[in-house]
């Protein structure tokens, strides 16, 4: 595996993960994470659409005029989202029924446009595809972790399987959107604190201690988008 591919994998899953560092895709994080099954469907949809969309856009990148590049990006990405919808409706109607309301959420997910603009516009198709997959999965593991907490505390179930006794009182707040705010913020805090610590440790060898956590500025900039 080439070093570039290795970097793409590490970036997507940890160093530059969509939720923690790019702070993209937060709206869908709030919406779908009170249930693991829905989260799973959403993650697969986003991963597929990002990977295929980025691959196509990377193939076309030398032909796309700068003036209309965003229009073309939206067109290609929504094309893949609608294709998923059409194919599921025809061949997997049960999943299609579950996915129904999420189709709109996939296309509004900033990760799709974010990766198309930040990566696929300047890299080769194969690498762009990998970047799409890794960002989808990087988004996915954070979402699934949050959904595990929310579904367990909110319903007492995981993937719809009851794990708690009858005396368990569900935490209603965990079902509602506000709890996702708390959990995402806590997870963000934890991940960034861990990263800052790891960086400080790496630099403790004698390099500048004042330059710890260079990721913070990047995060703030990304959050403004």
């Amino acid at each position: 595996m080439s070093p570039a591919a290795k970097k793409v994998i590490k970036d997507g899953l940890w160093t530059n993960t969509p939720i923690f560092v790019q702070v993209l895709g937060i709206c869908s994080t709030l919406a779908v994470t009170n249930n693991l099954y829905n989260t799973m469907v959403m993650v697969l949809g986003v991963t597929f659409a990002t990977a295929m969309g980025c691959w196509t856009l990377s193939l076309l990148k030398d032909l796309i005029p700068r003036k209309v590049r965003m229009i073309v990006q939206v067109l290609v990405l929504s094309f893949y989202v609608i294709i998923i919808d059409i194919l599921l409706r025809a061949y997997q109607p049960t999943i299609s029924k579950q996915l129904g309301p999420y189709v709109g959420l996939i296309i509004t997910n900033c990760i799709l446009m974010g990766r198309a603009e930040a990566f696929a516009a300047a890299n080769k198709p194969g690498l762009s595809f990998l970047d799409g997959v890794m960002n989808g999965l990087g988004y996915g593991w954070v979402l699934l972790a949050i959904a595990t907490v929310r579904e367990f505390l909110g319903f007492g179930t995981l993937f719809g399987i009851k794990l708690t006794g009858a005396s368990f009182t569900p935490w209603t707040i965990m079902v509602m959107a506000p709890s996702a705010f708390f959990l995402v913020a806590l997870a963000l805090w934890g991940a960034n604190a861990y990263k800052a610590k790891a960086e400080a440790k790496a630099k403790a060898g004698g390099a500048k201690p004042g330059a710890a956590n260079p990721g913070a500025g990047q995060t703030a900039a990304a959050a403004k988008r």
Partner: protein
Amino acid sequence: MKLKKESIGYVVAFTFVVCVAFVALLAVANQLTVERVKANQSFASHFAVLKAFGLADASTARDQVESLYASRVKELAAPAPGVSAYSAKIDDKSYAAVKLTNPGLWGPITAILAADPKAERVRGLEILEQQETPGLGGRIGEPWFNAQFAGEKVGADGKIHVVQGSGKGDPDKENSKVDAVTGASRTSDFVEALVAKALGDIRAIGGAL
């Protein structure tokens, strides 16, 4: 030769070609699957009617659904535009069902409600299509929510109230009340209205059974 990528002619031509190409692909995909989608929809509707009558459940095999539907369910003349009516004989008693579409919070809700001809007790409710908030109102499609309606006594006001309860489902079949979905008060109001309207429709057609 290097193309003048930023020239107005190129930009217009490129955008046009890209749009036509992708839209054409979507149109082809849609056209190729349209028959299948129709068959799926009709199957889903038949299955939901059977489930509302209590003649089938989630474990019923796919190939059994159509034969059960053909042998047990009678399609009646539409009592009103946009409403379909059905009847079935179960244990020598007649039941009626209607499929109707009523407003929801984000979009129309299509549901099938079965009850006795006088609409005194619900036989079953199935939500066929809805666009409520995923994870909140969207949960009205889940089996535990619909199961609460089965056997529920209709109140003197012709309604079944969808109200805040324990969040675990209301087991009392005599109180004309079911547990609402937590965090979905508005959707619950729409479900209550839909059920009341469906019960009214059943009362209207029930006399002929």
